[in-house]
């Protein structure tokens, strides 16, 4: 292990800054960007590449002369996959570090934990992860994909391929619950039917009896909304039970944590997913992104959809600041609301001013030999789920997360 002196000094000053005295190490004229992500613990598989994406984007912004003539400086906190640390670090970022913007949050649980804190402190917040949609809050921009962009394509495609009866397996927290309701909604629109939905806490890893129950219900397909490392056991046990040839699987989450590289090829083959990013996409901006990542980090295998959208989120914010010509929160929000776009790893993304969500290009993908093989691409899909319920132009003081009612 080698530590050079600068690393040590940086580390040590940061340590003392966090532990005791107000931060003096960060120069006064830089723009401060807070980053809160789980870069250790069970969600590090999501968080680590997202943090890399933040670093890459900031390097690019600074290499292009910074923003408003000032450098952007990242103040990162590792929330250790512990939801309670999110509120703690969010308060630290707003009250002591006094950052200009916060990017981060992975699980919906973490977003809901810090959203009220950041709103109270009037600190702009970017949530860059694929999620269940419906957040309507003028202080927040949600850059990830939502069910209207994901399930709305995935579910009808799956029904067309495999049949009408759907069995949903979902993670038991707000993301899984609400996404399941969206799946029911889109299944119904496409003439299908969710015959059963089972919810699993994130630490469940034994799916034996569930697999038997699924066979008893005889669905035409499984839609998996499973999250985290323990839930991966489902795919293993499913494959071990010889079910792979019998009932096909579509998933809203597989591959967003690079799960397809963790599972063996035979366990992952044939799973249908829909997401905005694939390293196989034949898009110049995707290739440029991959090259930049390769140059900075040496290996592009760890990139996943939410790392790509974290990168998008940072650049969108930077464009908003440039357009506003100011760091003032309301001016930046208004500039972003006027419709800022960025062309990056997932193609062109444009902010929808009314909902603070983003228009995405989507790909229908089948997993083959641990690779994301694109079956077809669909351009510029608006976040219509949130658009149905949220209009921040009319109700700028809305702070709700709307949930679909079934």
């Amino acid at each position, binding site marked *: *292990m*080698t*530590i050079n002196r600068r*690393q*040590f000094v*940086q*580390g*040590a*000053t*940061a*340590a003392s*800054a*966090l*532990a*005791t005295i107000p931060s003096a190490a960060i120069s006064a004229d830089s723009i401060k960007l807070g980053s809160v992500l789980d*870069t*250790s613990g069970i969600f590090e598989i999501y968080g680590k590449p997202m943090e890399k994406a933040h670093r890459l984007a900031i390097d690019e912004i600074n290499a292009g002369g910074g923003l408003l003539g000032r450098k952007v400086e990242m103040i*990162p*906190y*590792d929330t*250790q996959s*512990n*939801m*309670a*640390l*999110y*509120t*703690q670090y969010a*308060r*630290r970022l707003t*009250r002591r570090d006094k950052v200009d913007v916060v990017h981060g949050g992975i699980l*919906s*649980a973490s977003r*809901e*934990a810090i959203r*009220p*804190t950041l709103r109270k402190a009037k600190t702009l917040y970017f949530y860059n992860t694929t999620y269940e949609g419906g957040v309507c809050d003028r202080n927040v921009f949600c850059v990830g994909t939502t069910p209207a962009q994901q399930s709305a394509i995935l579910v009808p495609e799956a029904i067309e391929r495999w049949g009408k009866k759907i069995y949903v397996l979902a993670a*038991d*927290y*707000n993301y*899984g*619950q609400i996404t399941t309701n969206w799946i029911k909604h889109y299944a119904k629109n496409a003439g299908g039917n969710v015959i059963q939905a089972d*919810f699993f*806490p*994130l*630490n469940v890893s034994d799916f034996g009896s569930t697999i038997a129950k699924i066979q008893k219900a005889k669905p035409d397909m499984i839609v998996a909304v499973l999250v985290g490392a323990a839930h991966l056991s489902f795919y293993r046990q499913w494959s071990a039970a010889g079910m792979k040839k019998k009932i096909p699987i579509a998933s809203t989450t597989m591959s967003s944590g690079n799960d397809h590289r963790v599972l063996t090829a035979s366990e992952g083959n044939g799973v249908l997913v829909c997401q905005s990013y694939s390293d196989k996409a034949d898009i110049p901006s995707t290739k440029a992104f991959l090259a930049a990542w390769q140059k900075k980090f040496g290996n592009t295998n760890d990139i996943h959809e939410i790392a790509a959208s974290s990168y998008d989120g940072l650049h969108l914010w930077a464009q908003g600041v440039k357009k506003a010509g100011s760091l003032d929160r309301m001016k930046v929000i208004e500039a972003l609301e006027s419709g800022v776009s960025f062309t990056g790893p997932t193609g062109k993304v444009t902010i929808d001013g009314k909902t603070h969500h983003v228009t995405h290009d989507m790909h229908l993908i089948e997993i083959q030999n641990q690779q994301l093989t694109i079956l077809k691409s669909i351009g510029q899909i608006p976040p219509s789920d949130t658009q149905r319920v949220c209009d921040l132009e009319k109700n700028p003081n809305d702070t709700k997360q709307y*949930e679909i009612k079934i």
Partner: protein
Amino acid sequence: MTARQTLTAVIVAAIVMFVLPVFFDVLNLTTFAAYALLALSLGFVWGYGGILCFGQTAFYGLGAYVYAMTAINTGEAWSGVFLAIVIPAAFAAVLGAMMFYGRLSDVYLAVVTLVVSLILFRFMNTTAGEQYIIGKARMGGYNGIPGYPTLHIPGDPEAYIYDENLYYFTFIVLVLCYLLTRWLLGSPFGRILVGLRENEQRIELLGYDVRARKTAAFAFGGALAGLAGCLYANAAEIVTPELFGLGLAAEIIIWVIVGGAGTLIGPMIGAAVLGYLKFVLGLRAIKEIFGKDNPLEAPLVFGTILILFILFLPRGVAPTVQGWLSRAPLGRGGPARGGQRRRTRTERARPNA
């Protein structure tokens, strides 16, 4: 405890309370004060009552959840504080009665308390659906409950007590609980409790109802733990099922062992010091110093500390230091039989962390 000792304790505590924020962040200090109260509760139940409870987190988590849900429903904090003490205490009384009247002891008791905590952990994790709602409060499952009203000046729900003021409030509550526990141990009830720890049969033969006394002690411990949970909920501004988890259950025991079971001050100091150690180990600055292969994984450090203490210092820091100070020969007994009998002036004069 005499009036003079109490006065000394209060003065020392006051000095400590005002000195600490000069060196440490108040947000952390508030959390550590809540941890210290939790450690005090187990220090009492285990160190003096001889009841090894592996699931003190059950009452702690319950206190936090009861507080959060009550505060959401009533829109103010104090009813929540009240219920966060009463409900965990009642729960501990029922659970304690079930165990002690069933004559469960040592390892079996440890299993039952741990299992109860795990049941609550599992249950809370499954409550993400819309159907789990009490009054206006969604239980939230894995998400936990954020955004409930925090402590405020009584009668004025808008005048929040936060940051420095919350720290002072938490610290004062901790000192009051410490004094209350001290007083309780000096009372006839406390003396019988300690006798019971030393020799349960003898106390029973003397005609005391052992089971009722153990149950009462357990309930008092539950009340303290519930209050600790409520204070934590105010510091963290979110409650999650992790509060019931195995990880925290382990940590509490380590705090008490390292600090010294059989004292009250030891567990409190143990909680604060180890809580701070964990915080420092979690800092990314520390991680960056060591790069990718950070050898200071918090569990590795904590596990090693626990092993070393059990092997070389089974009575914990506080009793050992006392032993040195009073030049008493070191006994070899387990931690539950620590230095209560040899309580010295030194310890009485050092009331708080």
